[in-house]
């Protein structure tokens, strides 16, 4: 892709065997806003901080959590513009699968395809890796699933995970609180508490975003009003 002048990979091995561009990409993710995901027994929740650069920004114009298919959603930490590219490619992949097999794409397949795209950009000529890590939440015939995909293109299934600025505190908090038989509602409460841990300022329905998918297999983003209700319960 791109100009033939750049038909060589920009991501190359260092003498110690590392791919430093990928490491730098992970650093970019680590300085992004915190996001997390929790897999419950009957669903999955993903959440993120939504800190905007100024009060002049119309927060209803920004949606960080995106729906990839009716039963799969995704959130990111890192560079927003890169995220949009991946979302667009995922939409297309999901649609192509559906066209071919006449059924909705399974979560693992979609994750694998997104990861493959991210890996391409670590090896192709004239491009840099994506500066985002993704948390993909879905519910299909294999039940509720949560996957994390990194800039290198590697992905793992998680019971609960966090990314971004506050990752270590958040993960410690999640490790303590996570139980295998958690219900979706509990998971939402736990995710709010986890976000609250590292939150600077007053948490509200307008500066966090939460997406959930339950046994109905419909992924949806909660409205600010619904988030306020959950916040009130947590107080």
């Amino acid at each position, binding site marked *: 892709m791109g100009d033939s002048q750049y038909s060589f990979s*920009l991501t190359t091995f260092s003498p110690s065997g590392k791919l430093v561009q990928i490491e730098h990409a992970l*650093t970019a993710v680590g300085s992004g806003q915190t996001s997390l995901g929790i897999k419950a027994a009957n669903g999955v929740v993903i959440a993120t901080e939504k800190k905007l650069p*100024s009060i002049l920004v119309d927060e209803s114009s920004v949606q960080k959590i995106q729906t990839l298919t009716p039963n799969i959603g995704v959130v990111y930490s890192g560079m927003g513009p*890169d995220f949009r590219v991946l979302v667009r490619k995922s939409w297309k992949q999901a649609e192509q699968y559906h066209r071919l097999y006449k059924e909705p794409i399974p979560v693992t397949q979609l994750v694998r395809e997104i990861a493959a795209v991210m890996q391409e950009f670590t090896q192709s000529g*004239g491009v840099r890796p994506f500066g985002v890590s993704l948390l993909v939440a879905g519910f299909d015939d294999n039940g509720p699933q949560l996957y994390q995909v990194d800039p290198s293109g590697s992905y793992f299934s998680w019971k609960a995970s966090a990314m971004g600025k506050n990752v270590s505190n958040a993960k410690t908090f999640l490790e303590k609180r996570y139980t295998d038989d958690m219900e979706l509602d509990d998971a939402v409460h736990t995710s709010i508490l986890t976000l609250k841990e590292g939150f600077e300022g007053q948490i509200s329905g307008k500066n966090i975003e939460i997406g959930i998918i339950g046994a109905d297999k419909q992924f949806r983003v909660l409205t600010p009003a619904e988030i306020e209700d959950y916040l009130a319960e947590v107080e």
Partner: protein
Amino acid sequence: MSRGSGGGYDRHITIFSPEGRLFQVEYAFKAVKAAGITSIGVRGKDSVCVVTQKKVPDKLLDQTSVSHLFPITKYLGLLATGMTADARTLVQQARNEAAEFRFRYGYEMPVDVLAKWIADKSQVYTQHAYMRPLGVVAMVLGIDDEFGPRLYKCDPAGHFFGHKATSAGLKEQEAINFLEKKMKNDPAFTYEETVQTAISALQSVLQEDFKANEIEVGVVRQENPVFRVLSMEEIDEHLTAISERD
């Protein structure tokens, strides 16, 4: 222990620095400021107004050819702050895209779709080494069928947000501070208030009173959703109203 800076190329093309930054994108932002112009956009209850300085560096220049306000379609306007040549490229491509959209889908391209398209194009330049990011911040304005007046700002990094008010260019931060105070309680400005807020914000931040030929003003109004550049007479009326008000 990760190796140092990617061989020094992280400053020349858009690859990551060790801190996970993209220097070329940051330098593109600096290029926007280097043009020495400040622009302001304000969204009211039923209108959007954008204002920018009109600096004509040479008296021999034809003033009418110096402009940063571009109609993209009849209903969408774009205010480009930064490098003029990059702005013209962007505008040309945006006009093409909007026209194709209208042809392909049978209805006018909405503001947010145009803003997203511009931002996605900018993102490509931040990821592919063969093209540098454009040194332009674009403010896109229009009246949306569903949501009413809309103002979006797209930057060289590929970010885009909807704004109640915003600024770009040399005195961007000062202007945003000024606007934050004005828009704190979500005022619903009328058309006149919208235009006057935008112009007086620019005057306050640059600490000078303008004459009508030193600024450019573009508006869209719900009652007449066409993108219009105000004439000298109209700008004068607003300037007079502002000075009488103070």
